[in-house]
């Protein structure tokens, strides 16, 4: 009996041993992520890859267009004040920033993140086995547009940057910076090419927001306008203004765009993808799908308009207060109609409350300067619903227009003026229509002021500041016009004229952002840094 048991046991043991020794199978197929090789074969996956290229624009962590970036950028200009130094924006305004502040580091990184995604798509898209050749070309054109946009951001702030058009690879990490001119020339070629491929309009509602022919041409116009401007155009090459004017005209000549009827309404959900919007970043009220503009303006108040901006608004007759027939009007009356459509000011009604400067408003605070922006918010004079009044970060739904038609019109006017060609016709088709839409009716505000380029430049610069107030355009305008040292040196003031702090601007250093020091640490070939930022 025992013998039998023993034999049985031996057999069992042997069996167990064999089982053990054979169980060395080590293959594991991941089921939670795609393999990079096969990912591009399918139609849906490749399209998701393209979506990822767009998503870089709205990234919460990346200071491109997501979060409240455009508002904080406004704070680096004389328009607004960022009291809590978010991402280092206030340091930039004060001229005390360093090469390691968050926005300098992360804008660089975010732009390259977008570039990397586009490059990866472009390198792999031809492997697709399901889409038609035409679809593939269209998708690649969108990615090429986005890549151009990301590069345009980079060269606008950092000047020379490493120029990479291949799929990401470790050895790109040591590449040095490429001259801006070389990058610009590539981008112009790219944008011309994709303009020939991309559609003028998308018909499907679920394609709204994708890159169009107009977007490519408008981006090219902005690129060329910047290249023509004093900061970029160090050789003062007049030909560049002509290219800029032509590029803007090309957008106008598409015949696709017009100004939206209501200025305030343009920055609301109703006007999304209107005929004025050329390219926008799409937001919606879903987790991580929105911007943070509402909570920033309502609660944080860390992009607070300055008295300087309020004082910059002209009066209803299209003249500065000092020379206006309304010069004795009370503080916030008889101003450019865009004022009340842009700014929340003491005594106004906002979110159902009278605006108070002592921080006792329940739903919002304007304690920093006495003002906040209401452009691009879901709020207005009326009380907000409980849901809207508590809308959190990354939930603001209104699309942000990176390029809008009014911008194109003013680009054209500016380039024409620099060329000495801002005729009445040009005026009427650009500045006049913008002012009409803003609500001006006075002839003194609407009519051509004559062909004095200096006067016209004053009008153009006024228009750019006021029309785009709160949209994050002005910081780059004062840079490219090289007027930052004039407008960014001095005290900034609250609504009642009290000084908050003094700003400084070092023209030998502060026109260009430094290459982030973290990047130089990773890649010493990025040296030398921009002038004034070390070796």
């Amino acid at each position, binding site marked *: 009996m025992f013998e039998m048991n023993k034999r049985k046991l031996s057999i069992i043991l042997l069996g167990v041993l064999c089982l053990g020794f054979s169980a060395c199978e080590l293959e594991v197929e991941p089921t939670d992520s795609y393999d990079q090789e096969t990912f591009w074969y399918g139609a849906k996956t490749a399209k998701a890859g393209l979506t990822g290229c767009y*998503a870089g624009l709205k990234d919460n962590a990346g200071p491109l267009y997501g979060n409240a970036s455009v508002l904080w950028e406004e704070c680096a200009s004389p328009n607004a004040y960022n009291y*809590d130094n978010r991402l280092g924006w206030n340091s930039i305004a004060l001229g005390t920033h360093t090469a390691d502040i968050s926005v300098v580091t992360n804008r660089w*990184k975010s732009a*390259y993140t977008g570039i990397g995604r586009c490059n990866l798509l472009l390198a792999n898209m031809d492997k697709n086995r399901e889409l038609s050749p035409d679809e593939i070309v269209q998708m690649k054109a969108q990615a090429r547009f986005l890549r151009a946009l990301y590069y345009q951001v980079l060269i606008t702030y950092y000047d020379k940057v490493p120029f990479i058009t291949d799929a990401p690879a470790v050895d790109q990490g040591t590449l040095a910076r490429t001259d801006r001119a070389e990058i610009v020339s590539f981008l112009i070629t790219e944008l011309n090419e994709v303009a020939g491929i991309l559609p003028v309009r998308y018909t499907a509602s679920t394609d709204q*927001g994708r890159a169009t022919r107009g977007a490519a041409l408008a981006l090219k116009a902005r690129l060329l306008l910047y290249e023509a401007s004093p900061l970029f155009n160090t050789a003062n090459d007049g030909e560049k203004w002509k290219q800029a004017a032509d590029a803007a005209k090309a957008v106008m000549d598409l015949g696709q765009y017009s100004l939206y009827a209501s200025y305030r309404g343009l920055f609301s959900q109703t006007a999304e993808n209107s005929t004025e919007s050329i390219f926008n970043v799409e937001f919606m009220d879903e987790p991580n*799908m929105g911007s943070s503009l509402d909570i920033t303006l309502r609660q944080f108040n860390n992009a607070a308009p300055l008295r300087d901006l309020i004082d910059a608004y002209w009066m209803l007759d299209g003249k500065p207060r000092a020379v206006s027939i309304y010069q004795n009007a009370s503080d916030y009356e008889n101003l450019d109609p865009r004022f009340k459509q842009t700014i929340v000011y003491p005594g106004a009604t906002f979110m159902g409350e009278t605006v108070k400067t002592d921080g006792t408003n329940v739903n919002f605070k304007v304690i920093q300067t006495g003002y906040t922006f209401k452009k691009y918010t879901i709020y207005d004079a009326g009380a907000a619903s409980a849901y809207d009044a508590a809308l959190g970060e990354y939930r603001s739904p209104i699309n942000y227009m990176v390029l809008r038609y009014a911008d194109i019109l003013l680009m054209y006017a500016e380039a024409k003026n620099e060329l000495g060609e801002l005729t009445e016709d040009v005026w009427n088709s650009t500045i006049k229509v913008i002012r009409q839409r803003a609500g001006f009716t006075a002839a003194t505000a609407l009519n051509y002021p004559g062909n004095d380029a200096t006067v016209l430049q004053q009008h153009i610069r006024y228009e750019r500041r006021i029309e785009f107030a709160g949209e994050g355009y002005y910081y780059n305008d004062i840079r490219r016009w090289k007027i930052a040292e004039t407008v960014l040196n001095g005290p900034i003031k609250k609504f009642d004229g009290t000084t908050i702090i003094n700003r400084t601007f070092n023209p030998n250093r502060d026109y260009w952002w430094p290459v982030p020091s973290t990047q130089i640490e990773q890649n010493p070939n990025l040296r030398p840094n921009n002038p004034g930022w070390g070796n």
Partner: protein
Amino acid sequence: MISNGTICKQQLIVVMRYSAILLFFIGIHLGALCAIRAEAQSLSNTRVSVHAKKSNLKDIFKSVESQSVFAFVFNDGKIFNDAQISIDYEGSLRMLLDKLKERSPIHYEQNGGNIIVTYQAQQPAATLTGSVTDIQGQPLPGARITVKELNRSTAVDQQGHFRLTLPAGTYTVEAHFISYQTDSRRGVSFAAGENKSLAFTLQQVVDSLDEIVVVGYRSQTKATLTGAVSTINMETKANEPLTHASQALYGSTGIWVNQAGAKPGNDGTTIRIRGVNTLSGNNPLVLLDGVEYSLSEIDPADIASISVLKDAAAAIYGSKSSNGVILVTSKKGQAGKSKIEFSSRTGFQEATYLPDVVSDPILYMQMRNAAERNSGKQTVTYSADQINEYREGMAIDPSVYPATNWFDIVLDQGMIQQHNVRVTGGNQQVNYTAGLGYMNQAGVFIDNDDAKRYSFDLKVSAQVTDRLKISGAITGNLRKYNEVGYGTGTVMNTLMRALPIFSDYHRNNMYGSTWLYTPGRNNVENPRMEVEQGFTKRDYQEFLSSLTLDYKLPFGMKYNGIFGYRKVDHWSKDFLPEMYTVNPKTGDRKIFNSNAPRLKDWDAYNAQYSISHRLTWEKLFADKHQVHVMLGQDYQVNDNRNFQAYNYGFYDNSLQELNALKDQTNAQATGGSTLDKLASFYSRLAYTFDEKYLFESTFRMDGSSRFAPGNQWGFFPSVLAGWVISKENFFHSRQINLLKLRASVGRLGNQAVAIGSYNSQVIIDNAYNYSFGGTISGGAAVNALNDRNIKWESTLSYNAGIDLEAFQQRLSVTADYFYKRTFDILRPVVIASQVGGLAGPTLNLGKVDNKGYEIDVNYRDHIGQVDYGINGSVTYVKNKVVDIAGQQQISGRYIIKEGYSINSYYLYQADGFYQSQAEIDQASAVYGTRSKLRSGYVKYVNTNNDGYIDDQDKIITGSSIPSYMFGFGAHVGYKNVVLQAQFQGVADVDVYPTANLAFPFNNGAGVTYEWARDSWAESNPDSKYPILTTATDAPENFINSTQWLQDASYIRMKNIQLGYNFPQSITKKLHISKLMVYVSGENLLTFSKFKMWDPEMTTTKGDLYEYPNLKAYTAGINLVF
């Protein structure tokens, strides 16, 4: 002699025993009370009356027996039967006996309830009597007394007494007992008829040489050990209120244990064995009885011992061994009488360190204003009117004008209790043990901070046939804890951000905010609200079931198989209700949180299947040649899955279930799974010659699914050798009991690389989604580069050690020198963002060296009945990056660079503060913008003198890894009382805390008093801190610089305890074999330069938002039946 009374007594004891068990479960320690009765009986206060006429002694004794609880012990004999004694006596028994002694040649002696009466010879030879006890005064029955010259010996009786009659003379008398030190007395001389009494007190020899140490896949005696192994006998930790098994490792040589935050239920420590080998993945492998397990899920009370393999001895565990291996051996069944053990303790805990925050609202406001002015601002936050109003209002309405110390409000003491019971028993065929444990711990937050642990285990071992033994074990642990709804980190952040001007008003679920506006504080976070409202409930269940087969094969071979199944289930429920703050002045109510009430359920399921087979052949040839051969094979699969669901929009706070909300508009779900497989083959060949020359060699091959085919297999050999010099013939020393040299070399592996690291992955995530025309389009992106060719990281480990035991093992010394070189380090590298903004790939990168030594010294002895011991250990380890292909890896404040320690700090060099405007104006280079700087701002060194202070001026300094770990302690015992204390500490380690309370007024937070006392002013030029500025407005002062690097070395009294062992005279009557009570204190004293927070924090953490460390005061009882 056995009377009815005795039987009653026994019954009573039985009843008392069960009562004691019952009482235990309700947590009241009354057991000790039962002991008092018997002790009260003494000869002096026992009253007897004797009226005898010419009676013999025997009858007199019988009469006395009937009147008292005492029994007489004597030999029937002439004297007892024949003596004619008349006595009329009433009084104490002692007096009676003394009277009888005068009248007859007898001698008496009380022993408990017995009175031993002896006849003293008329012609007396010398008599030696005496006792043998241990140093606690417990008798040692079975010990022997030897008179060397006569070669006569006698055994010691149950009461610890002995008696010898001797001829007159001078002798050497020795008392000896197994595993006790022999006590000998020379020159004891006896005159004829002389009676002498000798009391021997023997000290137990912890015979460390015969101690069994569990090492890789086998056990060895300490004497034959060739590896560097630290062992922890959990009996020595029995009275410490360990809430996490890893806390038992404190003070062990070569091991850095760092408890950063002692959150109840989640108080695991970081364990680093002999430094930090590699750049990521530094956790040691933990096995419970041979199966991989988590230290978090082992009740410390269930552990018998822990071995830590620190050198090439770990190589037998191959690919997971390079960070050391921790082998936990649980308590097992034992043949013998059933034994029931209880232990129970209760006490309270409180935070060790809390920041010294300014809680005076007026001072706070003045300081904030001053800081803003010092930062260049021309308008300040609090107006003079507001401050005046506040000052006047404080006396009238403290809810509108509060002076709130939030640490006092939301932190309090927490109770802790732990109860364990274990039954062990069995016979030669079957033995068992079963244990049950319960812990209930309340944390220091006033609400939503508590933990419970229920642990149980059952182990049965059966000798099925002569050849087959089957053992089964099931170990289960349920850890339930409740955490504040927003999570500990967030709430600690809130607490460190709270201001004294915030009102602690709380009524009807509304919590006070403030009527004063403070920049950054738009939505006031009331700490009490965040503690009280909402919760996170977690249930962490884990069980391990294993089946072990031991089978004796022919030719002396043995098969051992372990089949383990480990199941982990982690579940949590987060609930956050809608919260409201109220302005204490205006009464305006404000909703605090959006998307509420919200709920999140999460479940993670992990299953681990493991099979381990071994064939062992062991044989002793010619009584000298011991050969051991082992072949083994393991296979392990880890299957991890998790799932999470979220929803919000309940109407109110009463419903807390996902299915209570049918509206799925806001619902979110996520989940995932990973599979991880490891296959291994290993073998060992060991040869020992005469226990003098020790030799061992192992090899292991591991294959892991974490690498791509082709790179899956790694080979890990080792060689260990030992030479026991003290066994050599030429070695003659009576003082040295053991002298052994050890050496080992081996290759250890590390597979601590994220699953799928070699795969090129495209990730789907909502961050990559985008909406087109208001419709969400699913996105995907690559977020990291990868290297398909990554392979095993390995460590070459060298160790040389010496073991010394001397002075009859009173002194033991272990010293080791070690050198480890880790190469092919698996490291996710940081690459320049220009490469698609991607995380760098995990690469096999470079080499790191760890060199160091460990010394451990123990001495124990006794002076009379005073037993004492001291111990001390120190470990030094320094690591150095030897090669990373000339690159440097910088991430934030840390750098990895050749020639420096892993994660050295990389900082601007601060050089005090500017003392004047002239100094600023004349500086050749400044950091930031010169016009912004003021006197009292931090001055930085332009180390390369290039006219710019930029990243090139950063210096490499300090380390987040301590170079020295040390521990020391002492115990002293007298009779039944033991006092002991253990200290522990680390040195040469730095921390870099930033943000709230580390920096002043950070993002709207408050400030510590230190800034009021010691910040720069013209009158205080040598201050500790720069001029008071806000962290937001003067970032120049708060960049990563040496100014804020702080030395976090510390020495801490880890444990102090005072215990009392009830003497056997008492316990025996209760039929208890051991009864001990004690009081214990943990972390009561800490000495450190770092005062802001407990220095034992996560050394790489950039802020202070950790749960506090705790000090504990406990009292407890241990009872063994």
